């Protein structure tokens, strides 16, 4: 076994990186893969709460790097999936506590025993981001169909190309099909044309995502959720399966007709 290291980044904050990592990790684990997530946002730890593992933290990634614990001691096992682990970020330190070579070393130690290592990159394009991409075999860029998020995503794509990390794949998050249909939101085609990279998934806006985060159970476990389905599809694509993209137009049409019925036009 040799794990694939996948870093999820975005440039802009708040576009759904952490949510994407948590959901993809759970989806991969439920497909029977062995998965480790690493929270790369030193000082702004978040992946633990989104995954519902905040009460179990004893050691963190800085403890591993500085030799205060063994790698396995800092790995928190998920409540539902025995082959899913989290390595939390340090909360009281800053990005300078970790270097790109530290991240590479931690990932290389994990590689033989797992299928996927998912790294949640911090926002921005500074040290924390450089740490997060250091060991990546593949990078996924998350963006929203908004001008600021797309612009920042483009910067990240440019840096990845300059660093010879290859061209990343795009997760377009929080797409609102009804707004796209009204020409009030950039469409997936628009964003792809602007960024010039390949798409790996479109995640529609879905209230269930927030509900999942509130509970610490990622939405991907929600069978009926559209966003959950989108994340499950992305996880399949990461495993090399060709899964067709979801029909989002349909949902927009349905939503519109509901609005029309409700007299909102």
């Amino acid at each position, binding site marked *: 076994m040799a794990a694939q290291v996948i870093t999820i980044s975005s440039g802009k904050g708040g576009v759904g990186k952490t949510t994407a990592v948590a959901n993809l990790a759970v989806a991969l684990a439920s497909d029977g893969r062995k998965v480790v997530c690493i929270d790369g946002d030193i000082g702004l730890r978040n992946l633990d709460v989104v995954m519902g593992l905040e009460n179990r933290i004893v050691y963190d990634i800085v403890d591993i790097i500085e030799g205060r614990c063994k790698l396995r001691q800092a790995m928190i096992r998920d409540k539902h999936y025995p082959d899913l682990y989290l390595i939390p970020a340090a909360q009281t330190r800053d990005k300078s506590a970790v270097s790109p070579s530290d991240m590479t070393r931690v990932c290389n130690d994990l590689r033989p025993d797992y299928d996927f290592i998912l790294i949640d990159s911090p926002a921005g394009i500074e040290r924390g981001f450089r740490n997060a991409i250091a060991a990546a075999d593949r990078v996924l860029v998350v963006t929203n169909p908004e001008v600021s998020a797309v612009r920042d995503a483009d910067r990240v794509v440019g840096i990845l190309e300059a660093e010879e990390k290859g061209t990343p794949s795009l997760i377009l998050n929080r797409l609102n099909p009804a707004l796209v249909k009204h*020409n009030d939101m*950039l469409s997936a085609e628009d964003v792809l044309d602007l960024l*010039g*990279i390949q798409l790996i998934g479109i995640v529609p806006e879905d209230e269930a995502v927030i509900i999942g985060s509130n509970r610490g159970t990622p939405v991907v476990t929600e069978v009926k959720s559209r966003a959950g389905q989108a994340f499950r599809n992305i996880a399949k694509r990461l495993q090399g399966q060709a899964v067709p993209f979801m029909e989002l137009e349909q949902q927009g049409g349905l939503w519109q007709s509901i609005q029309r019925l409700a007299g909102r036009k």
Partner: protein
Amino acid sequence: MNWFTTRKRSAESAKERLQLVLVHDRTDLTPAELESLKDDLLKAISRYIEIDRDAVQIGLERDGRSQRLVADIPLRNVTRRHAG
């Protein structure tokens, strides 16, 4: 209705604005620098041939993830000038 037309265009204007912004971000060239590049370019060309400055079109264009500087520089019709 005015309200309707402005709403209708917002995705389009987002895309148009982003197209411009991304080209400048990627080339690290400000609009002012691009203007002075155009000036220098036209000055250099003018030393050899007479050009129709008013009809010149020079701009950055995107081609997937790469950028190109595209210039369309019409030349003045020399024979007509001589005839006149």
